[in-house]
């Protein structure tokens, strides 16, 4: 992060300004990705007029970075009027799309409207793998065609590669594809539980040796020695710093107007159909509760050697049952990086019966004592 961006963040925190908001304009989607955390029905999306009203409020609240996402944003017939209005209000707009429906005219409009970046999810460079994940035949071919159209117009395009068991071995191929297309590449090894609380899809994610291998690939993480270094001693600064941007400078708004601290943090804080956005942002008890939490307030994590360097997501912790508890997925990442188990892992291990002792006991019990 550059110095000016850091200063902007610091000022936003001090002033209580929501610097960034993700607005999902729809949950409808033309793809049916195996790991998606959303349902794709329309339960009463905000109308164009309602969204314009929300954008007015966000601009007045000081929001600068606006991510328009879904679902698939282009499933909304009024997506371009929404985008046009957002740009009229001078938001720095990032679009998340699968690019399947991007043709020349859509790419032209996105360029002409001064969109800052477009993020496209690509799971593999092989159609049989990518299309099996999206469950939409021909989706890789169409997404790549969309990316080419955007890139040819000078737009900043980022390929986002979620890593799962199903596509884990293809990340080098996706990275090479990004290079060939002249676009940026990011990986995300996190599979988020469904917003309704179902954690079944988390099992699709990679872990253990696969995660360790990703974290030791200099092409993906840069300086491996630095990235995988053991955590330094915990100090007061680490225990008092902001855990992440959720509720501090960022929040998420669903297509139905529900406001949450983050995309991955489905704690309801209010609804813009019933309240003004700033009222929710400033006065929602839930928003303020999230805002009040520092690492030293986390019963397990505050005792963990990783507390200063962990990527702990409070939303994932919330979905595990306690927003002040550990996020096991992040514990696993810290362990894969450094080889040092987290406090949470040690606690869990201590409370679990030792399998080898159980085996001995079972064998013993099979032998007559007398």
């Amino acid at each position, binding site marked *: 992060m*550059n110095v*000016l*961006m850091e*200063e*902007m963040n610091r*000022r*936003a925190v*001090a*002033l209580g*300004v929501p*610097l960034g908001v993700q607005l999902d304009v729809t949950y409808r989607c033309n793809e049916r990705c195996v790991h998606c955390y959303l349902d794709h029905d329309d339960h009463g999306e905000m109308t164009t007029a309602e969204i314009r009203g929300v954008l007015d409020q966000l*601009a007045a609240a*000081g*929001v*600068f970075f606006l991510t328009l996402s879904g679902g698939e944003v282009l499933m909304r017939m009024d997506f371009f009027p929404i985008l046009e209005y957002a*740009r009229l209000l*001078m*938001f*720095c*707009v990032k679009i998340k799309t699968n690019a399947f429906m991007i043709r020349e005219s859509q790419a032209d409009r996105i360029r002409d*409207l*001064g*969109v*800052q*970046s477009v993020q496209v999810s690509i799971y593999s460079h092989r159609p049989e793998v990518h299309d099996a994940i999206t469950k939409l035949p021909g989706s890789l071919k169409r997404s790549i065609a969309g990316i080419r159209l955007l890139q040819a117009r*000078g737009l*900043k395009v980022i390929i986002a590669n979620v890593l799962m068991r199903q596509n884990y071995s293809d990340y080098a191929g996706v990275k090479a594809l990004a290079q060939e297309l002249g676009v940026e590449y990011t990986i995300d090894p996190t599979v988020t539980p469904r917003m309704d609380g179902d954690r079944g899809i988390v099992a699709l994610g990679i872990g253990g040796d696969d995660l360790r291998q990703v974290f030791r690939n200099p092409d993906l993480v840069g300086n491996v020695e630095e990235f995988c270094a053991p955590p330094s001693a915990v100090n007061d600064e680490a225990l008092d710093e902001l855990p992440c941007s959720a509720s501090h400078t960022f929040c998420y708004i669903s297509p139905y107007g529900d406001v949450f601290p983050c995309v991955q943090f489905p704690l309801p804080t209010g609804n813009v159909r019933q309240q003004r956005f700033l009222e929710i942002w400033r006065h929602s008890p839930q928003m303020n509760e999230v805002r009040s939490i520092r690492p030293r307030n986390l019963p397990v994590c505050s005792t963990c050697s990783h507390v200063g360097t962990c990527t702990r997501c409070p939303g994932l912790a919330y979905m595990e049952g306690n927003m002040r508890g550990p996020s096991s997925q992040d514990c696993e990442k810290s362990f894969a990086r450094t080889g040092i188990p987290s406090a949470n892992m040690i606690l869990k291990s201590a409370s679990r019966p030792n399998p080898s002792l159980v085996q001995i006991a079972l064998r013993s019990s099979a032998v007559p004592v007398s």
Partner: protein
Amino acid sequence: MSSLYIARSRQVAARELGGEMMIMSARDSTLFSLNDVATVIWQAADGQTPLDEIVERRVCAEFDVEPAEALKDAESLVRELEGHGILMVSETPVVSG
């Protein structure tokens, strides 16, 4: 010297934060921060009001500066912002584009 007209580029994002204008260029994602005087000029850049009028009515009215010097600084500023592609400068009125 003829008047200059200035208009904000439509290829930028902008928001005031704590009295300073934050501007990001969509062209290369460069982030700029304008001080309070530059912010006043940016906000008045409607493509229709001459720069000397902006300086006289807005800058000199809000800040304790000498008009001729303020105009010279303003011209230098708008040329710099034009170079970064975040402001359009013309000798005739312009439509923001």
